[in-house]
């Protein structure tokens, strides 16, 4: 069987994971390792008036108790947000100070105040309990839609009224006019629930300071170790870049939450220098709920105007985005450039205007979570479309079709230039695979069992790759969003690929190897993918935003181009043939139409022995490349959910789920389908189960798996997955990305299906049995009375 592009190759990396030989950060143990435990604020908002550490310091096994003022004295910098957003009045965003250990004030329950370093984890925890912190409690502000209230408690002095920025995109006047003149107007208040990413591996860090070399090593649960090193050195001043090695070994899922550099990593590095010990910290799940960046948390009002035929004339959105107590690394771009720029959806809309107010609250920082901004946009548009169709008495699929963009490239009024797509084709495939034609019969059958069956659609589009660098730079990004790769052909012909992408479940060790195997006709077993270590890979931007394929693999392809060019020159020289006559296939370089050839390993050997190279050629066979895309990529698809609701209990079951996606070229369909499965399950989780809940005083009520409902195996069905491929014209292999689609497309499909089943448009996520039951009571008193 082929192992090249398009083949369902089994994963190379599985062996270590199925035998228990994976190596995650918490599995690492250094010589002379000590353990960190953090002292965290029990209050959502308070002044720190005193810290008494004498009792803790006296406890057995305690090495040090460290606090914020010492951190500041050592010139460790504040945590920063790396994407500058400008308000509509031209003012900059208001970034409040975030010290890795609080100095004067705590701003959310869980904010770190001090750290204990001890000989054992138990000793560290016990001593952390014994650190006596005096707090002067302050009133807290918790909810997005209360943060801007006059008189709301102030989270940061630099942000009066808790307003971080007041940003807009699109033409307000034209959009208002288009809606005012519309034949039909649909208006909805929509909340996007707050979620906890919950990768199954909790965050962890092991920091080691080598006094002799003045050098630091950090093992950490990161999606982007090079970005971590850059930020830790350039902004947090922990160590200069050449004196800091960051290693992200096997990482147990990320979903966005492991992009950021958190206080704990900073403190472990700093504490390792202070104590001259390796310092390890691993979050328990409670700590993860309390400190991992959350996702979503938008409150929006959306208004959409339609003409008589059902064509959208204008779309206006007002959103308040809760960013929590501090601005996390990429938090500012999520509700702006990753959200409002996607408000055109798959539709040709001439007039769009969005206003986004980002606010501080006394809650955990909010940042990107699988999809990041795009799920929020998709949820708004797709709920609006379904609701509008119902209001206008149209079939929801037909209303979408009527508005689909059908020619490409297409410039939306909100920055994005869609490069390719086939939205009708996606929907056709989904309708067929979901057997929508058979739905009435299934609904009737369900009714005989006393169940309300509903069907819901969602046509999503996302922008992936998060690039090009110059474009994101002009929009405020503090980094370039390219990717790098290096391809090393060894003298024996085996190949190592060093990539700046990072795999934390995505299967890069297999798919990246497939790309190389495909190029030269080699077995994937001869290709090793190296990633996740700043000492091995020179630089990279990491993995998030479905960018490893479109950007990471494109960098590898660019490096392969250079390798191939040199291989051709060497082979042409050795075989005394013209380069144009050479073909590379089956692991050999052949002179077309003859039996003359060089085996792949012979080329490698020739490059390294350098006995017979073309005049002036350098020995060796190793090439690097940086790839900076010319545009985002635009995966899109059509999802159809079918649910059954028990009207007596409000319990919803997703009985069918169909996804028809256009991801461009697919390298390994098995892995791509797995990505969709996982994304859809997270989307179903958001729609039915998951919600971070804070009490009015800022106490986190969903602090464990007993309170925060994760999707389990019996909450989800088998999924039906279809592909409809239009290649991306802007990268060498035509890749678009697949990692986030499920989480973006699924929530509106599920909610649209439930609201179809119960006959209301008014239902919030998560659609818990209680919410659904109440909605049924409100909407259909006849059923309730039965």
């Amino acid at each position: 069987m082929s192992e090249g592009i398009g083949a369902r190759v089994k994963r190379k990396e599985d062996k270590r994971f199925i035998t228990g030989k994976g190596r995650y950060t918490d599995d690492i143990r250094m010589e002379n390792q000590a353990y960190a435990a953090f002292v965290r604020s029990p209050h959502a908002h308070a002044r720190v008036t005193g810290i008494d550490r004498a009792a803790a310091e006296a406890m057995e096994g305690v090495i040090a108790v460290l606090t914020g003022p010492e951190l500041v004295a050592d010139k460790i910098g504040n945590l920063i947000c790396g994407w500058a957003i400008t308000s509509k009045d031209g003012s900059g965003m208001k970034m409040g100070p975030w010290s890795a250990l609080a100095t004067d004030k705590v701003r959310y329950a869980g904010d770190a105040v001090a750290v204990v370093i001890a000989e054992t984890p138990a000793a560290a925890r016990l001593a952390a309990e014994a650190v006596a912190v005096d707090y002067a409690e302050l009133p807290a502000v918790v909810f997005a839609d209360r943060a801007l209230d006059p008189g709301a408690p102030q989270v940061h002095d630099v942000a009066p009224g808790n307003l971080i920025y007041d940003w807009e995109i699109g033409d307000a006047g034209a959009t208002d006019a288009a809606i005012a003149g519309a034949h039909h107007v649909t208006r909805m208040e929509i909340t996007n629930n707050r979620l906890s990413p919950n990768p199954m591996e909790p965050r962890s860090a092991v920091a080691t300071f080598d006094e002799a070399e003045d050098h630091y090593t950090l093992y950490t649960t990161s999606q982007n170790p090079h970005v971590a090193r850059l930020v830790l050195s350039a902004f947090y001043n922990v160590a200069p870049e050449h004196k800091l090695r960051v290693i992200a070994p096997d990482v147990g899922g990320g979903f966005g939450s492991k992009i950021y550099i958190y206080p704990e990593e900073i403190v472990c590095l700093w504490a390792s220098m202070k104590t001259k010990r390796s310092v390890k910290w691993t979050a328990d799940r409670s700590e993860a709920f309390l400190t991992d960046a959350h996702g979503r948390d938008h409150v929006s009002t959306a208004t959409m105007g339609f003409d008589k035929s059902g064509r959208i004339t204008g779309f206006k959105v007002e959103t308040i985005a809760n960013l929590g107590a501090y601005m996390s690394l990429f938090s500012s771009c999520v509700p702006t450039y990753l959200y409002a720029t996607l408000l055109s959806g798959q539709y040709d809309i001439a007039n769009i205007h969005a206003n986004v107010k980002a606010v501080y609250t006394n809650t955990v920082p909010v940042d990107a979570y699988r999809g990041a901004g795009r799920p929020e946009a998709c949820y708004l548009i797709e709920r609006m479309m379904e609701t509008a169709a119902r209001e206008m008495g149209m079939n929801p699929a037909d209303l979408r079709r009527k508005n689909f963009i059908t020619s490409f490239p297409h410039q939306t009024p909100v920055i994005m230039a869609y490069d390719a797509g086939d939205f009708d084709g996606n929907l056709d495939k989904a309708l067929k695979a979901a057997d929508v034609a058979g739905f009435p019969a299934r609904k009737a059958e369900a009714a005989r069992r006393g169940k309300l069956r509903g069907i819901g659609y969602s046509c999503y589009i996302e922008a992936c790759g998060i690039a090009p660098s110059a474009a994101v730079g002009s929009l405020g990004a503090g980094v370039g969003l390219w990717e790098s790769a290096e391809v090393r052909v060894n003298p024996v012909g085996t190949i190592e690929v060093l990539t700046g992408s990072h795999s934390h479940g995505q299967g890069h060790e297999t798919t990246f190897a497939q790309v190389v195997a495909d190029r030269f006709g080699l077995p994937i077993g001869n290709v090793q993918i190296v990633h996740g270590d700043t000492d091995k890979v020179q630089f990279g931007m990491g993995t998030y935003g479905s960018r490893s394929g479109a950007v990471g693999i494109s960098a590898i392809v660019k490096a392969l181009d250079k390798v191939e060019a040199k291989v051709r020159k060497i082979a042409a020289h050795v075989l005394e043939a013209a380069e144009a006559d050479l073909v590379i296939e089956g692991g050999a370089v052949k002179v077309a139409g003859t039996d003359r050839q060089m085996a792949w390993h012979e080329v490698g050997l020739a490059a390294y022995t350098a006995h017979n190279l073309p005049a002036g050629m350098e020995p060796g066979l190793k090439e690097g490349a940086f790839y900076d895309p010319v545009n985002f990529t635009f995966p899109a698809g059509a999802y159809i959910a079918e649910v059954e609701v028990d009207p007596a209990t409000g319990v919803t079951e997703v009985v069918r789920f169909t996804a028809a996606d256009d991801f461009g070229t697919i390298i390994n369909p098995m892995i791509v389908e797995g990505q969709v499965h996982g994304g859809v399950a997270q989307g179903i989780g958001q729609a039915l189960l998951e919600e971070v809940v804070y009490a009015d005083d800022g106490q986190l009520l969903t602090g464990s798996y007993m309170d925060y409902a994760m999707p389990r195996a019996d909450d989800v069905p088998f999924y039906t997955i279809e592909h409809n491929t239009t290649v991306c014209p802007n990268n060498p292999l035509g890749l678009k990305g697949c990692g986030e689609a499920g989480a973006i497309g699924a929530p509106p499909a599920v909610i649209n299906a439930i609201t179809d089943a119960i006959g209301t448009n008014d239902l919030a996520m998560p659609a818990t049995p209680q919410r659904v039951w109440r909605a049924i009571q409100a909407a259909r008193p006849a059923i309730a009375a039965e």
Partner: protein
Amino acid sequence: MAQVSMTVNGKAVKRSVPDTTLLSEFLREHLRLTGTHVGCDTSQCGACVVHVDGRAVKSCTMLAAGADGASVVTIEGLAKDGALHPMQTAFNDNHGLQCGFCTPGMIMSGVDMVARYKAEGRELTEAAIRHELEGNICRCTGYHNIVKSIQDAAARM
């Protein structure tokens, strides 16, 4: 301190550990068998599942001292003489894992459930597998291929 002796993956082990040492901690920190994972602190996620005297147990909910005298099998002990257990093979064949963090617990639970249903002569249906996985959380796979893996392994075991 507690004196703990048990058989782990066929080898007799003996350690003196603090009384409060959990079995998960004993395996990971004292025996350095780090294939057993810890994903929560409320006994919900199942990343820590091992077999104690032939039954699936969440090792984070049991004291090491409670397993004194027991025979424990962890993910590292499932393959015999280099030959993968059919459940391990099925997870690879069916792409039943992504990040791999939940995988050891999933595989150990899977082996246990197939064996139990076989012993009781019950059919391990899709619904039964999903129900049995109540105590194992996976954030990556959406469960689709985990269920397929267990179905596949059940046919092979």
